[in-house]
């Protein structure tokens, strides 16, 4: 049985439809999305739904290998091609012939290797290192990336011609926080799987309160992180404990998302205040209103003084007049609050 795509969100439904319509075409595909969203699952699903099913599915991570090694992995080499090449090595393009070559983290491939990849995609041929003879390959290339390739294109980190040749079909997987409705289904699915894997354990589904917490978390590690949390929950067999462990980060994440929506320069003291509070738990001994007040006052004063100094071109006596404090106090504040003139 192939991998299952779990979810009823618009994004997942659209991806399922796309797979149905393009799996048979063998056209180059780029799968994009944050770390842990399941790009490889989509690649496997495409393979399973294609006429190439049963032929090789070869995966290579372009970020995991240094350039030279990646090149010899992709194209292979002849015996004696370089010092240490005692035996001939078949490249992934040869091994994946008639099947699928899944190029993970394509955005991390060097520019010079990108041009070699482009050559294979254009001609359907490649030459192993140390060989003059080109070998034909019929390989379906599916690439994946968590980069914004359009941005890499602008920065000159990704070849434009390769970009267009790979992006014949684009599949974007949304992060988990943007498809919250999929979380309960994923939880149910993985609990079933893990319960069968860990024989002695039997985790029950999270109750409403816990589910709410799971839904409000921002899941920076996406489905992979959710899987890890579920595995831990099964081993510990205790939802409350697991939730307790990351509820602090849930709260902080929520606050982060609130404060990040506010214009930062206007709300710095408020944001700091919240962070201060977050940092203090669980050690309430060091919590003090006086400290918080001092913290906020310092922040506000620092911003106000910096602003006025900026406006006066760092003329301290003018700034002191505007701020209605003595010249001496201003000098003290500048040193105490660590205010530095612009470079």
């Amino acid at each position, binding site marked *: 049985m192939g991998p299952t795509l779990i979810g009823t969100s618009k994004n997942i439904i659209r991806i399922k*439809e796309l797979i149905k319509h393009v799996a048979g*075409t063998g056209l180059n595909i780029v799968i994009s999305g944050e770390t842990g969203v399941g790009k490889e699952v989509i690649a496997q699903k495409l393979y399973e739904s294609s006429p190439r099913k049963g032929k090789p599915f070869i995966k290579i991570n372009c970020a995991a290998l240094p350039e030279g090694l990646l090149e010899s992995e992709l194209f292979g080499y002849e015996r004696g091609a370089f010092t240490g090449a005692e035996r001939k090595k078949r490249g992934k393009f040869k091994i994946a012939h008639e099947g699928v070559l899944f190029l993970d983290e394509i955005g991390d491939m060097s520019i010079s290797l990108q041009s070699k990849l482009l050559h294979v995609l254009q001609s359907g041929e490649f030459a192993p290192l140390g060989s003059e003879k080109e070998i034909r390959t019929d390989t379906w290339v599916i690439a994946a990336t968590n980069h914004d390739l359009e941005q890499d294109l602008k920065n000159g980190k990704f070849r*434009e011609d390769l970009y267009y040749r790979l992006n*014949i*079909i684009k599949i974007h997987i949304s992060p988990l926080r943007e498809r919250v409705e999929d979380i309960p289904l994923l939880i149910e699915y993985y609990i079933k799987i893990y319960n069968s894997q860990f024989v002695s354990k039997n985790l029950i589904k999270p109750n409403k309160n816990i589910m709410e917490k799971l839904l409000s978390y921002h899941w920076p590690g996406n489905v992979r992180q959710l899987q890890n949390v579920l595995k831990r929950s099964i081993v510990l067999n205790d939802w409350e404990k697991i939730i307790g462990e990351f509820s602090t980060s849930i709260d902080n994440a929520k606050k982060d998302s609130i404060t990040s929506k506010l214009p930062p320069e206007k709300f710095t003291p408020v944001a700091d205040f919240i962070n201060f509070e977050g940092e203090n738990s669980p050690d309430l001994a060091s919590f003090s209103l006086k400290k918080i007040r001092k913290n906020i006052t310092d922040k506000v004063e620092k911003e106000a003084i910096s602003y006025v100094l900026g406006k006066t071109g760092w003329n301290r006596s003018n700034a002191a007049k505007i701020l209605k404090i003595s010249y001496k106090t201003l000098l003290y504040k500048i040193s105490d609050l660590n205010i530095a003139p612009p470079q």
Partner: protein
Amino acid sequence: MANPYKILIIDDNEEILNVLYNFFRKKKYDVASASNGLDGLKLFEAEKDGFDLVITDLVMPNISGVAIITIVKRKYPDMPVIAITGWGEHPEALAIESHADLVFKKPFELPELDKAITDLLSKKKAKDLS
């Protein structure tokens, strides 16, 4: 007199899509339109008797125009396909490689596109009859 030809237009720019749709409707073509590659492909697959001609933008989300051209030409090598693009040389080269009959660079004049379509359709008709 009703124009007997069925054409499919795919472009993710709704404004251009509307202009093309209305223009060819006025010319009495039977027009179907889609604002992305997947919807366009679905229309193409659902049309039992096939279209007489396809016009597609090249750079689009999900399924690109290059994919559309390749899929259409594999199924019906003689079906005329016109690519329209505003994205420079690379997509254009790929469109030609996937056997688009014509590539129109944005912006273009509608009467020119109209004339190209008439020519392609009459060529196809002559070929079908021979």
